[in-house]
């Protein structure tokens, strides 16, 4: 008797991505560049986050034609984004056969209150988080992988750093709590108690946690690894730079060898211009994608 869609199979898939880079792509050609550069997976979208920002309006699941085109172009796993709470977009992506669904704040949320009940699906989900409460609520809903939210499409690493540091320091905090302090901690952070207990016992999250939202250079990727990320998502940072092949390859290498500074120095030499970044204070409240869900 074989079983599909178990936690072990869904979380295990993310374990295999560790130490790797997942790249946003909008067509088959970019997907091939990403695979060739050593990406562990690609995220098929209609537009990268920086362009979603620029275009404004409602951002939805990509046209299935784009997703299928990417799936046919590469042998590495293909992920795709569904709007938060959009059960049907997620089911459509699952039926297309994508390997992972990102229930993502980069798209315009379909539901302002509820996330998708991800335990219902055979396909695994990745979700964004800014702190431990958000992280364990998503795991509670069935997410098999997490990523820090950062601030997508800005090319500014500051929010990704804030979120990774927050999650990591809270994990350490939980490990040091006594049993009788744990319930109040659960109440204060809005975290499912059972999951906090598991984190306390293991000293780590029960799923893989990547960094995302603002990674633009090899040094950015290495920084996130050093802060405890299991791997990185690069959205606009590759195909909005002036030399995507170079950026893609260099970010892959810097992620593997994140403590080899001489190498990262070499990788950063003559790399070309990174995507143009945005300072956080220039974003209005409505522009902040990270605040679209909790």
């Amino acid at each position, binding site marked *: 008797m074989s079983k599909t869609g*178990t936690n*072990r199979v869904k979380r295990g898939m993310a*374990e295999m*991505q*560790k*130490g*790797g880079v997942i790249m946003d792509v909008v067509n088959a050609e970019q997907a091939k560049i990403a695979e060739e550069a050593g990406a562990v997976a690609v995220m098929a979208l209609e537009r990268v986050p920086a362009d979603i920002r620029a275009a404004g309006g409602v951002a939805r699941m990509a046209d299935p034609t784009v997703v299928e085109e990417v799936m046919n172009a590469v042998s590495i796993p293909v992920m795709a984004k569904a709007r938060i709470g959009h059960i049907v977009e997620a089911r459509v992506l699952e039926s297309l056969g994508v390997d992972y669904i990102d229930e993502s704040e980069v798209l315009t949320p379909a539901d302002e209150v509820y996330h998708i009940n991800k335990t219902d699906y055979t396909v*695994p989900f990745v979700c964004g988080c800014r702190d431990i409460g958000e992280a364990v609520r998503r795991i509670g809903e069935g997410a098999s992988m997490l990523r820090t939210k950062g601030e997508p499409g800005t090319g500014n690493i500051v929010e990704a750093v804030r979120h990774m540091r927050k999650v990591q320091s809270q994990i350490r905090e939980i490990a040091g709590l006594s049993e009788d302090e744990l319930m109040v901690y659960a109440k204060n952070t809005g975290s499912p108690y059972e999951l906090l207990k598991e984190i306390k016992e293991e000293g780590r999250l029960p799923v893989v946690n990547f960094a995302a939202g603002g990674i633009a250079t090899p040094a950015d990727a290495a920084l996130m690894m050093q802060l405890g990320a299991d791997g990185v998502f690069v959205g606009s940072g590759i195909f909005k730079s002036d030399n995507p092949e170079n950026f893609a390859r260099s970010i892959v290498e810097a992620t593997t060898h994140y403590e080899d500074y001489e190498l990262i120095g070499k990788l950063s030499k003559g790399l070309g211009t990174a995507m143009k970044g945005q300072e956080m204070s220039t974003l209005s409240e409505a522009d902040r994608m990270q605040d679209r869900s909790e």
Partner: protein
Amino acid sequence: MVKIGVLGLQGAVQEHVRTVEACGAKATVVKRVEQLDELDGLILPGGESTTMRRLIDKYGFFDALRRFGQSGKPIFGTCAGLILLAKELDGQPDAHLQLIDIKAARNAFGRQKESFEAEIELKGIADSFNAVFIRAPYILETGDNVDVIATYEDKIVAAQQDHYLTCAFHPELTDDYRLTQHFVHMVEDSVKKLASF
């Protein structure tokens, strides 16, 4: 205590480290070629084989890994590691390290939604073993000197040829250490054998 490396370029590296340590051997993450010299055995973990191959080439691991195997030191490849070890790959003109005489097919069980876990028998190792298959490959053909260790629905999913061991599933994702223990014994035997030359 034997020392077993886990190739740490990408993939489920820490899980193998934990499993090796649980089997009573010393484990180390290998990121540089020089580290291979200190090892008695090596594990090529699960992950993305295309990514690993690119980094293997980039950091001069290719010839070093082949030499490591040819010197008689055991290598255990799981999932992507099986693909790296195979002599031939279905539908691909170039295989990778070509150390074990098998022909394998990538992602042969399908995409992620077809990924599964199942109880299988590991010949001479375990009557029942919970095997986790993730976008897993399987073995299409084996050479004369290859022992088939496990099949699932008539597909070969684990095999051994002399000091090379390979499986399509992920023993590092469960708490059943018997297959890794088998590999640790292979490494212990090889240390004795290589010392007697």
